[in-house]
């Protein structure tokens, strides 16, 4: 190297203010730390508030009895007791709605996801992918309105479990499609080739190799989609309305935990139940999230 260039570089190095750089480095690290602390503390504040305000309503009857009427709640409040009853109608309703929605959305979502993965570059696949993204962006209240029109008015002639499930399924669909495609992409192509080289018919390559190899990804995607729609309220208001007792009839309206929260919010006597119901919903969703992370970590293939 030319010695004059070397001299110049030495000079630059000698005159650089490392102190200033070091300060900048620490400064930005401090900002990042602060912002992430704020983010984390929001999560803990939410959970903390729900626990503090909601825990004393949580007892056996909370899970085994239906929501009380406003008169019982008023009497309990007046005598300083905890509000009797629970949210059984909401819990069973949520499970029924989400269960039926999964039954509808999972086969659709996984089949379309596999199609997109197998035909990644085809024009038709790209169109489907774009439309899926649009579907994901449809506001949930709009989904509710449309399902009201299609199912509530035309099919069940009234608010129903079926209508609510269809609305939730429509919202789950894009999530499952994309997560299926992504988890299929994680399967090494060599596995697919190995199966094809054994003379395996194509549908068996998908059923026996691709799906089992990406199973944890598929489950994770489904669980995340379930936890996403579990707290949906707006579409359920328009499709299944609510029910003060437990219902298993798919053609009849049903309650759901978020619907109950909305109902409690609108009734001054029920305020205390808002927090415990929210705590339950939050805990359930959190559990699903942790479960999906655990499955993803545990069953991932190397």
């Amino acid at each position: 190297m030319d010695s004059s260039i070397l001299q110049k570089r030495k000079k630059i190095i000698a005159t650089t203010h490392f102190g200033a750089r070091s300060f900048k480095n620490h400064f930005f690290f401090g900002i990042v730390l602060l912002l992430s602390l704020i983010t984390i503390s929001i999560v803990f504040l939410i959970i903390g508030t729900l626990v503090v305000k909601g825990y004393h309503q949580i007892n056996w009857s909370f899970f085994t009895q239906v929501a009380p009427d406003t008169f019982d709640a008023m009497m309990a409040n007046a005598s300083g007791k905890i509000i009797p009853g629970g949210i059984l109608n909401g819990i069973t309703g949520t499970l029924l709605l989400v269960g039926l929605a999964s039954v509808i959305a999972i086969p659709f979502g996984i089949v379309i996801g596999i199609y997109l993965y197998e035909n990644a570059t085809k024009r038709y696949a790209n169109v489907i992918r774009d439309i899926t993204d649009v579907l994901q962006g449809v506001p949930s209240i709009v989904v509710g309105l449309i399902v009201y029109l299609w199912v509530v008015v035309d099919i069940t002639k009234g608010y129903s479990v079926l209508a609510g499930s269809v609305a939730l399924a429509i919202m789950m669909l894009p999530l499952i499609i994309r997560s299926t495609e992504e988890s299929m992409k994680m399967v090494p192509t060599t596995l697919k080739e190995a199966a094809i080289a054994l003379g395996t018919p194509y549908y068996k390559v998908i059923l026996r190799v691709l799906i089992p190899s990406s199973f944890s990804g598929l489950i994770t995607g489904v669980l995340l989609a379930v936890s996403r729609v579990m707290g949906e309220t707006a579409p359920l208001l328009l499709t299944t309305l609510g029910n003060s007792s437990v219902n298993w009839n798919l053609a009849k309206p049903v309650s759901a935990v978020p619907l109950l929260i909305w109902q409690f919010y609108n009734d001054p006597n029920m305020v205390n139940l808002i927090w415990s119901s929210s705590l339950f919903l939050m805990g359930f969703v959190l559990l699903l999230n942790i479960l999906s992370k655990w499955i993803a970590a545990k069953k991932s293939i190397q």
Partner: protein
Amino acid sequence: MATSTSILSIEDLSIAYDRDKYAVKNVTATVQKNAITAIMGPSGCGKTTLLRAINRMHELYPNISTEGKIKLYGDNIYEMPTIELRRKIGMVFQRPNPFPTMSIYENVIAGYKLNGIHLKRTERDEIVESTLRDVTLWDEVKNALHKKGTFLSGGQQQRLCVARALAFKPEIILLDEPTSALDPVSTAKIEDLLVELKKHYTIILVTHNMSQAARISDNSMFMYLGELIEYEDTKTMFTNPKDPRTEGYLTGKFG
């Protein structure tokens, strides 16, 4: 070289990507039965495409066109159902790829399972044991048959993949640089295994490693830019190459 029976004849085979980019150009050759045939050549010379053309795996690539014929015992493989063909011509890949969701036992009989061929328990056990013995893996894994294949070492996994390809008793086994991801000891084991296997099978091997071809193959093909430049018995090719390009490759002038 032409003295013993041939099993496969490649007749004026050309393979093109995107209609005009030829990966394999006018290759004609016959493959000798119960021998190891090595395909050598620099990167991008078309050796993997030629190998994959033999069990039609190259058709998985998009926009591929194939001209010419490959005949297995006189039958054109391009007129056979691919599923039937691939059961007759097994394949082992560059990197060991046992099915991660299956145990060692299930990996060996994966061909039967995936093809929905039902076997009795005794038949299954017999196939698993004899095939694993053939690939000299039995003693190492006989107590762990129901563990996942992915817990084995790289060399053991690759022998398991050979076993998986052998379980169907194919006519030909294709190997695409089977030792390029393995250490020297595992490589030696695979090489010994191939020499042993040629008693019962015909082996076609793509290799980057000239000394490997020299050590174990009976016949060698040298490919360059999609053309089959030279095809000789290995000893002749290494001691007395006819084409200057072959000589250049073998002496390390390019490649």
